[in-house]
């Protein structure tokens, strides 16, 4: 089992606030190998970001709590790792790109200083000059002129800031990159550029990556594997080809596909998914999607479905129970 780069097993995360307990992640399982790109799709609040933050142990202190499960990164048990070990992983071996580039850079440090800091933290033996060269190099790679490294974040546009975020994440050449909706806050035209840039850099360094998004198109273009998250658990996973051929899908994934307008073929009415996202403070006993599912039966409401596998394609739905035995 140790051969995977990242392995998340049966992860449960909850947020304890004054008013309620939010069950954000409920039994998440996933594995990722070196160099693999996994797309994680789901609505806002489905638990995608929480999963990513759990991997880095960056859940908000006192509020976010991992109640069950394990996360193993390259043989290291992350949930029981010492703070010092975690610091060695963060930034150096696992890096993260955040959703909002406007607020994720420190406003009073130059961008050069902020990229530099990663090197200072993880490569103490590097000389200043080497570090400077490395910063220049990575800025070049993300398409920012190196003379701008002495400028402050507010002097850059949103897209540029996200490029800086990418530079900061990649400067130490990590093995795993967690990209949490890296383009959601950006203009559509810039989104494509940023994704293209990430793809190039990912291939160049053979970085494994979890790309969190709610855009199915991005996943199809960019990822090898995909998992669909709903109510804090993965309800469908598989190779991009398996999921996107749309022969067999979880009813929720079907719904997602049907709510995207098609550019080819006859114009049809969009079919939205009925109802609202499951209330994470009050999870149902059975399938979390049952309330919104057109195929739901009494069994769905009473009992949680397991994964039904067809090769590497798994779907958590009783409809596929007889397809090929439970995994």
């Amino acid at each position: 089992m140790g051969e995977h780069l990242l392995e998340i097993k049966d992860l449960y995360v909850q947020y304890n606030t004054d008013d309620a307990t939010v069950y954000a992640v409920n039994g998440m399982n996933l594995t990722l190998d070196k160099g693999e790109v996994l797309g994680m799709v789901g609505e806002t609040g489905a638990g995608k970001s929480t999963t990513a933050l759990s991997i880095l142990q960056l859940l908000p202190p006192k509020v976010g709590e991992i109640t069950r499960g394990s996360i193993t990164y390259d043989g290291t048990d992350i949930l029981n790792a010492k703070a010092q070990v975690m610091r060695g992983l963060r930034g150096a071996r696992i890096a993260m790109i955040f959703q909002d580039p406007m607020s994720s850079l420190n406003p009073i440090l130059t961008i050069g200083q902020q990229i530099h800091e990663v090197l200072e933290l993880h490569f103490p033996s590097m000389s200043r000059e080497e570090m400077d060269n490395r910063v220049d190099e990575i800025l070049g790679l993300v398409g920012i002129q190196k003379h701008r490294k002495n400028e402050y974040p507010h002097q850059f546009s949103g897209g540029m800031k996200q490029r800086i975020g990418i530079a900061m994440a990649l400067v130490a050449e990590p093995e795993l990159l967690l990209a949490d909706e890296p383009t959601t806050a950006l203009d559509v035209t810039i989104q494509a550029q940023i994704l293209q840039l990430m793809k190039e850099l990912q291939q160049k360094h053979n970085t494994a990556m979890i790309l969190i998004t709610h855009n199915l198109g991005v996943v199809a273009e960019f990822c090898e594997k995909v998992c669909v998250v709903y109510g804090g658990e993965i309800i469908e996973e598989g190779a991009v080809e398996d999921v996107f051929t749309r022969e067999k899908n979880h009813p929720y994934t079907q719904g997602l596909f049907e709510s995207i307008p098609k550019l080819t073929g006859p114009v049809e009415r969009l079919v939205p998914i009925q109802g609202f996202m499951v209330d994470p403070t009050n999870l149902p006993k059975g399938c979390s999607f049952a309330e919104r599912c057109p195929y739901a039966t009494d069994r769905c409401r009473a009992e949680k479905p397991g994964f039904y596998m067809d090769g590497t394609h798994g779907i958590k739905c009783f409809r596929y129970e007889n397809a090929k035995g439970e995994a």
Partner: protein
Amino acid sequence: MGKYILKRLLLLIPVVIGITFFIYLIMSVAPGDPARLILGENATAEEIAAKRLELGLDDPLIVRYINYMAGVLHGDLGFSWYSGYDVMQEFLSRLPNTVTLGLLSNLITICIGIPLGILAAQHQYGPIDYTTLVIAMLFSSMPAFWFGLMAQIYLSINLKWFPATGAGDLYHFILPAITLSTGGLAGQVRLTRTSILEVNKLDYVRTARSKGCSENQIVMHHVLRNALLPVITSIGGHFATILGGAIVTESVFAIPGVASLMINAVKVRDVPVVMGVIVFISVFVGVVNLLVDLCYAAVDPRVKLTA
């Protein structure tokens, strides 16, 4: 930069004119003849008329005001109606005491308030946090004159640790400065605490953590510098409060400073002295605020000083 400073200093002029005119106006509207007040109930009509002439009280309000302001522009704040001293000279001789007291007190507030605020923030909702806040609150709720009086009686008179009254070397100023800083201490602690907690929640602190910074590095490099920005701004306002509080403190410890000059002047309605203090302090506060803004601009790259 130079242009900005000049503009800010010029902006002080209407403020000074406004405040002095307001005081001048109500002084002339208020009942009671200053000349009679000075000379006493037994003065004859001739004496009073002579005094009014001497003080220029028979001129219309505007003329008197313009004459006064013309003097101010030449650095002439007039003479005390009661004691006859030159207000400007008296100020200059007393100023060092008030400035020493103010600076020392501000220094104490900053040196104690900011570290306590950091401590409270790091132990948010813990016993240390609550203890710090309650103690700070207790100190700022105590009237400064009461705290000063008690400190004077117990620490100076009974224990003889500090000189009880008067001004001299720095040692004389320690107890008064502590007294003066009690009022602002709680504010400083709370501001620092809230500001740190606010910054702690921001995305870029999470980014720093994701880069592998240790908690200490996060506090020093990312949180503190950002969190202290509002604290810097508060120092300007705080300085003004301190000058107000200095009146009481100077009175308790019998320090011959500018502020205590005010007390007697108020009791006897010594207009030139009261006006002088107001002009002086408002300019002083304005300049301190300008300095604070300059500091702020130096620390925060986002701030552009536009003239």
